């Protein structure tokens, strides 16, 4: 298999993020600097699981109205909240002026979309006929169906280019960068809105509990006593444009992507991280960078025993113990289908601000991990960073982000 060919850098000309740490990149950056976690004991609906969650506040305080009414559900409210931050709507509107609505793609990622609506509808089934309540049927398409999020975002932004939702579990909103890059490279659009939104629901809370992957405490990535993940929810977006058109010196750009599968197991990673290695190598090849060029790696770092140790093997085999590595899931929780965009935006912030966040909640680094795991924040200019995302179905994606010279 020949190495992938280098790709044209794509500028992140606008980006934004809403997590349990707050609305917009300002609060996220502040939380990173002050090492303040967004994780709190689970108080979602009537869930009694002993675990912590990264819950976005305020989602029950408003509803979507007018032409957005059919879309109203927790996932799309979170999507809407995300669009309101950091001037993203204005940036998208300006891009629409520049290129035309048909020339901007919308590629979004989510794992569970608005399944919470279906969970609620099932509780209201008619005990005799098993029929779902009347309010549900006309809303399925706009809430639970996997494309709902893509439909919602292109409606909000008035965009008419190619649109799709990528749903490959946790890697969903990392892979949106790859799909958008290909659409742009193939000349099918001039710009793309990419992103991911995933929100809390019973399916994932009880599902990860059934897999015995939830920690009772806020997750502790890379810690010797780590015992599982904490779930979170998030919405994030980036506007991708060709670097030569809009990118000034120091602008953050997507330089490379790599995608692979483990071909091993639905919910356990490959023991040697073979698929992860392939994704990272391909991302470096597309970025025309060598392993030595990377200064910071934002790990998938879910804080499960298996993930952190397999990811460490993969990362160490490529980079050795040179680059600083950390997981930021101690701040946000694992936001599943939104993890890709969450950590891409955090990596972009790290590049722009010269900040390498130390792994929050990691008290003592697992001595079997060979990579250089940061525990404390470090300040210093970074030019190139890698963000890793691995998910169910053994689906892997790595992104290389960097500052344009």
């Amino acid at each position: 298999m020949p190495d992938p060919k280098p790709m044209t850098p794509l500028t992140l000309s606008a980006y934004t993020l809403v997590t349990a740490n707050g609305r917009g990149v300002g609060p996220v950056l502040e939380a990173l600097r002050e090492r303040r976690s967004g994780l709190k004991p689970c108080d979602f609906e009537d869930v009694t699981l002993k675990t912590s969650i990264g819950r976005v506040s305020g989602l029950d305080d408003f509803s979507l109205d007018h032409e957005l009414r059919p879309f109203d559900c927790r996932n799309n409210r979170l999507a809407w909240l995300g669009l309101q931050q950091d001037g993203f709507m204005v940036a998208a509107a300006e891009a629409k002026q520049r290129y035309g609505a048909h020339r901007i793609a919308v590629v979004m990622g989510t794992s569970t979309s608005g399944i919470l609506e279906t969970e609620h509808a099932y509780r209201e089934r008619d005990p005799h006929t098993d029929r779902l309540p009347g309010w549900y049927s006309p809303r399925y398409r706009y809430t639970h169906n996997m494309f709902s999020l893509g439909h919602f975002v292109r409606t909000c932004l008035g965009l008419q280019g190619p649109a799709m939702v990528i749903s490959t579990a946790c890697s969903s909103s990392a892979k949106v960068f790859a799909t958008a890059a290909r659409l742009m490279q193939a000349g099918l659009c001039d710009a793309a809105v990419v992103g991911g939104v995933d929100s809390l629901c019973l399916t994932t809370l009880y599902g990860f509990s059934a897999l015995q992957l939830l920690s009772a405490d806020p997750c502790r990535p890379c810690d010797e006593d780590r015992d599982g993940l904490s779930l979170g929810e998030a919405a994030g977006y980036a506007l991708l444009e060709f670097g030569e058109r809009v990118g000034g010196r120091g602008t953050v750009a997507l330089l490379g992507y790599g995608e692979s599968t483990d071909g091993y197991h639905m919910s356990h990673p490959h023991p040697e991280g073979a698929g992860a290695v392939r994704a990272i190598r391909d991302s470096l090849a597309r970025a025309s960078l060598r392993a030595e060029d990377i200064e910071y790696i934002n790990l998938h770092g879910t804080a499960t025993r298996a993930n952190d140790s397999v990811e460490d093997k993969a990362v160490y085999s490529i980079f050795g113990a040179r680059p600083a590595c950390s997981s930021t899931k101690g701040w946000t929780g694992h936001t599943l289908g939104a993890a890709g965009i969450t950590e891409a935006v955090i990596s972009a912030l790290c590049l722009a601000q010269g900040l390498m966040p130390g792994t929050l909640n990691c008290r003592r680094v697992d001595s079997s991990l060979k990579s250089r795991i940061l525990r404390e924040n470090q300040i210093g200019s970074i030019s190139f960073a890698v963000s890793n995302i691995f998910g169910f179905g053994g689906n892997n994606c790595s992104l290389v982000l960097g500052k344009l010279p």
Partner: protein
Amino acid sequence: MKVSIGGIGLLASGLVGWDAGREVLAGMRPYRPGVVPDPEAELLPPNERRRSSDCVRWAIQVAQEAIGRSGLDPREVPTVFASSGGEMGVFDKLCRALCLPDRMISPTLFHQSVHNTAAGYWGIATAGQQSSTALSCYDDSFAAGLLEAATVVCVEERPVLLVAYDLVVPKPLSQARPISEGFAVALVLAPSSDGWPAVIRVRLEEAHGGEAVGLEDPALERVRQDNPAARSLLLLSAAAAGGGRTVRLSLSDSQQLIVDLEPCHI
């Protein structure tokens, strides 16, 4: 984007396998719907097959048919799986379990609920490590999948296995999303230099109102409208009829995917 087709897999009522399906779609035999036998999907290890959903078995059945015809090693072929709703049968079971007091859900059922379940099982069955995408675009999921697959072929210069499927939606979810017949289709696509039996050119156009034209046979047209994966029937019929025609697939209201199919024998 110029792309060649090296193999087709098909499974639907009255269209069991591409050989049989092609004859029906070419008008050589009448369309006679019937019960589709549970697909063998023999690539799946027996224990996985036993636990797998209909979606997984149907998707893998057509995937292995298409890959077999292409002669490619599945481990060398990235995949794109397109489905409007994904594992609706699994959602039904999960949501029922979540209504019970203890909310105990099966860990297997949970990991089988993701949209990339079929894609993941294909990877496990073939021990493949190539990239794999699972996507949705509601009723236009086949067109979106074809677009994604064609861009991988053209930009990354790799062959791609495209699989589109949606299965019968169980009650009570069928109230909200009535799909009454299962449909699965797979295409192996590759850079046009490979000299394969069919060549398509794919481009996007703005849609100026008006539905894409349907199929002449009213029974087949009902199948096409019933199931998002069956939107592929326009392209499959054109291929069965020897190509040399243009197919328009709607892509989320505002655009159409225009597929020019050169004369072909596939």
